[in-house]
């Protein structure tokens, strides 16, 4: 906790939550995206539709899921469908407005690596891999990315293109026949970034309270571009902070094994 009364991570999650609207249909990655989406739902966007790749559509969990398939997601969903249906009708069908992704490695064009550090055949570190990300990145109407800044994570060149952002920048998506917008927003623990309209390079448009340009550059592996007029991200409101902290507290308790009842099975014996 800084003297500001909130942590950089809290600022990141809350800033991300503000980008979401009530009529958005979000395909939610686990971790920071999940927290941001649920804070949005619990504050200014109660009608937002949250979709997890396990098949839960329109879910409203009381605690954050540890995995993308916790029972709470199904308990509170409008409907729960099979995984093939999720990827075919809902994602590939073009019904997702925002795909919300995290990243192990990210470059300035929003390309993401969660596959390997090092060479694919002989990796230094074998990461979990892409999961839903390769198609989330191209089938969602737009992509928001959220991650904490570090030189290891935000790099000039990623080791593996797990999912495609703007490629080499410019009209690279278009040249590959991809007609969705790709990454349109990056929210880190220090700043809000948007792609340059032409080059598609992520550019800092707003610094979080108390953050300097130097601090952003120190924790980023590429030479950072800043917008001509740089905003300051509004500090979290009391409601936002309380909502996030309550959510985290409920979540921590639940993940330590304090049972939440398993509800809503079939009605028979």
């Amino acid at each position, binding site marked *: 906790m800084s003297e500001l009364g909130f942590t950089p991570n809290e600022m990141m999650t809350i800033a991300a939550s503000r980008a979401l609207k009530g009529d958005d249909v979000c395909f939610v990655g*686990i*971790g920071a995206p999940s927290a941001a989406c649920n804070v949005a739902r619990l504050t200014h966007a109660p009608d937002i539709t949250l979709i997890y*790749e*396990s*098949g*839960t559509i329109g879910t409203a969990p009381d605690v954050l*899921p*540890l*995995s*993308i*398939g916790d*029972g709470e997601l*199904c308990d509170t969903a409008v409907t*729960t*469908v*099979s*995984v*093939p249906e999720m*990827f*075919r009708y809902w994602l*590939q069908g073009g019904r997702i407005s925002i795909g919300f992704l995290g990243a192990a490695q990210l470059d300035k064009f929003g390309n993401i690596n969660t*596959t390997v550090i090092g060479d*694919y*055949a002989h990796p*230094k*570190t*074998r*990461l*979990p*891999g*892409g*999961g*839903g990300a*390769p*198609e989330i*990145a*191209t089938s969602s109407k737009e992509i928001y990315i959220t991650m904490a800044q570090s030189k290891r994570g935000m790099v000039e060149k990623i080791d*593996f*293109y*797990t*999912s*495609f952002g703007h*490629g080499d920048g410019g009209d690279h*998506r278009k040249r*590959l*026949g*991809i007609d969705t917008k790709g990454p349109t927003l990056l929210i880190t623990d220090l700043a809000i970034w948007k792609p340059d309209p032409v080059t598609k390079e992520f550019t800092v448009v707003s610094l979080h309270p108390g953050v300097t340009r130097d601090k952003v550059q120190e924790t980023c592996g590429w030479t950072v571009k800043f917008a001509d007029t740089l905003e300051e991200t509004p500090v979290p409101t009391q409601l936002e902070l309380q909502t996030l902290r309550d959510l985290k507290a409920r979540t921590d308790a639940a*993940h*330590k*094994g304090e*049972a*939440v*009842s*398993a*509800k*809503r*099975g*079939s*009605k*028979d014996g």
Partner: protein
Amino acid sequence: MTKFLPLSKAVADNLNNGDTVAFEGFTHLIPTAAAHEAIRQGFKDLTLVRMTPDLIYDQMIGMGMARKAIFSYAGNPGVGLLRRLRDAVENGFPHALEIEEHSHAAMANAYEAGAAGLPCAIFRGYRGAELARVNPNIKSVTCPFTGEVLAAVPSVRPDVTFIHAQKANKRGDVLVEGIIGIQKEAALAAKRAVVTVEEVVDNFDDLHPNLTVLPNWSVTAISVVPGGAHPSYAHGYYIRDNASYLEWDEIAADRDRFREWMQKNVIEKTADDFAGRVEHLRNVA
């Protein structure tokens, strides 16, 4: 027509060294008891298929049972990496592991195509993604009407699929509910399907007609193993043991500690031990 069998016999009858096998479960209903029985019986040279290989494949790979893994997300869900799988891929310990890596969309489509009896699946995928460069089983097909180039992957057709489900009725029909994941497709895509269930009920007369039910003639064998999905969960029976997932990260980090844990918690145990593991996670609603 299905048979009700003890798990040890259902596994022995249906799994062979060298088989392509799927122990499927998408976070929910992971067939841990079946996987542990396979570990106890010491199968070798398996090709392990699963969208989300997690603890059970980490365990089987760490025990040296796998020749190859076909997957789309090899993580401990919500926790991090799979350390035994990493050790096999990065260091060849206990031996090298061949991998065939896909995206979730590709695997979901491949299972669906397998259930549908097709040789391949087509979908709009892998655009700009590098897996298409390193996986020779990602090809393309051109739409004969629009000229659009679509991704193509071979269907998944396991020799045997193991799944865990909530219940069977006495005729051997099987119900899966809640997060149904890819279970129906994985079972129907396989030559043989083995199901562990929480319980057997008289009949399904009160079930809604549109639930996910596998008719008895589409299932090879059923074993009753209460708690058999632990530390995953069975919706309506017990919740996910998130603490065990967190703990696994430490156990799997060390080769010796891993072996000790496996000896004590898998090798020296039986399917009957699962019921006790979920006692504190059972529904109090």
